[in-house]
């Protein structure tokens, strides 16, 4: 199907995309300032005293809901939530942040599709930096967001042979095993260290996106022995030209070793890993861009599954925030695909790189306690 190009409509769509990005910027800045102000207010003794009374009541409600009478009577003196709670009281009703997250993720979904990045890489730094959720829950939700997107895209990619099982299987085994190790490491380390490392990683991803120039069809003169043994070659039909494209990989061992680091980072930060999968499969191993992108998306469904289980088993998934994130991002992706036909993705991509620099710096500063 072809689209007739209409400059007015394309201009309007670009304008909409720019306005969306500007709105996100201002909203993030506003929320960040408001939350910082709230945190400093919450540290005042009067506020703490006023809140401790509410805590005692709410802990009673909480324990009564579990039906544990013995614990409920003990909570008169001190409840676990009260003893461990240094957090500022949030004046918003319970539905405010999940609803804000739904709209935010909807816009994020549109932008992510236009910029050609996965949702997870934007979700984790932005939500951990500008929403009141702890990094544990943001990483858990980030993995589920990336997983849901990969599960939705997987069947189409496999049927069209853009995701290749022979290429994906060995890579997935390495990345998913290391993602488990990364997830356990990320949950064992103190939050400020993980936040600092996240900031550095996001800044690195922004630089990678800025500098990397993917190759549509890399030239692979000779398939190496490992690639040959694993059958890392194939054929796909290029729908735009009707051309049959044969491909094979090289530098396979180096590629497989890099997936150790990719898996660890995916699990540790809950980022998804499309930003790293594609350059390694395409630029290093020599898979055509379409196969690299398709296989990378499919790979996320395996890598993120293993890490997501670790987070899920540790209680790092709050359904109230995770499910609006998944739904918002998926709806945004559907709209983004439709807008993609008219918009100029290059501008959006540069804006996303700027947002990543901003979010990375914010995460770094937050991790360092500045």
């Amino acid at each position, binding site marked *: 199907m072809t689209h007739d190009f209409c400059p007015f409509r394309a201009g309007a769509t670009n304008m909409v995309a720019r306005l969306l990005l500007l709105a996100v910027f201002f909203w993030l800045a506003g929320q960040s300032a408001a939350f910082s102000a709230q945190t400093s207010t919450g540290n005042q003794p009067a506020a703490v005293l006023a809140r401790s009374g509410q*805590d005692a009541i*709410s802990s009673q*409600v*909480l324990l009564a*809901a*579990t039906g*544990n009478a013995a*614990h409920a009577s003990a909570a008169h003196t001190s409840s676990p*939530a009260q003893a461990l*709670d240094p*957090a*500022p*009281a*949030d004046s918003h009703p*319970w*539905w405010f*942040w999940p609803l804000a997250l739904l709209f935010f993720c909807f816009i994020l979904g549109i932008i992510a599709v236009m910029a050609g990045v996965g949702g997870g890489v934007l979700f984790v730094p932005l939500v951990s930096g500008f929403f*009141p959720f*702890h990094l*544990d*829950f943001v990483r*858990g939700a980030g993995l589920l967001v990336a*997983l849901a997107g990969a*599960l939705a895209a*997987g069947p189409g990619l*496999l*049927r*069209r*042979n853009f995701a290749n*099982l*022979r290429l994906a*299987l060995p890579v997935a*085994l390495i990345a*998913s095993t290391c993602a*488990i190790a990364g997830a*356990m490491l990320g*949950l064992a380390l*103190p939050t400020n260290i993980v936040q600092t490392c996240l900031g550095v990683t996001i800044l690195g991803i922004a630089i990678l996106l800025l500098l990397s120039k993917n190759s549509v069809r890399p030239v692979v003169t000779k398939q190496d022995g490992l690639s040959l043994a*694993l*059958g890392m070659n194939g054929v*796909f039909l290029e729908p735009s030209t009707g051309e*049959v494209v*044969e491909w094979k990989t090289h530098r396979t061992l180096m590629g497989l070793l890099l997936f150790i680091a990719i898996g660890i980072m995916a699990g540790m930060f809950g980022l998804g890993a499309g930003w790293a999968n594609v350059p390694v499969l395409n630029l290093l191993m020599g898979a055509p861009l379409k196969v690299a992108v398709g296989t990378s998306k499919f790979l996320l*469904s*395996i890598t993120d*599954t*293993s*890490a*997501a*289980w*670790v987070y899920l*088993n*540790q*209680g790092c*998934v*709050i*359904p*109230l925030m995770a*499910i609006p994130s998944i*739904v918002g991002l998926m709806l945004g992706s559907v709209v983004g695909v439709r807008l993609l036909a008219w918009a100029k993705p290059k501008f959006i991509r540069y804006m996303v790189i700027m947002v990543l620099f901003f979010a990375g710096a914010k995460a770094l500063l937050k991790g360092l306690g500045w």
Partner: protein
Amino acid sequence: MTPVDLKTEIKASPAQLHYADTLFYGALLGFVMMLITYALYVFGILEPQIPLQELPRLWSQDAATYRAAGTIPQGWGWLVLVGKGDMCNFIGVAFLAALTIFCFVQLAWNLGKARQWLMMSIAIAEVLVLSLAASGILVAGAH
């Protein structure tokens, strides 16, 4: 490759197509389950383990504090509380997370039938890795 080989290679293998079908219908079912259980939760049809009003105070703290405050068990312990509004959401989430394991079991079987022993071994190893992650054994060491 001969033109006949190319024609065969362009098409996804039967094992790949089976994987795609299972993934498609499984993901659809998982998303529907997730939306239904979420509606039951937020509209108050099922009473939650942690009252909704409590969450803004808990979600800014780490997972250990959240678990302690809500007496939420680790691993598969949520199954005991599955009648609660918030815990029942894990049915859809766990189903989606388990989908890849089902797909890989089916893939290993199909690869075995096609006598692709190396790929079948990798698929079986993947099932073991994902099952280990899903088992809840790997919960030690978290803060």
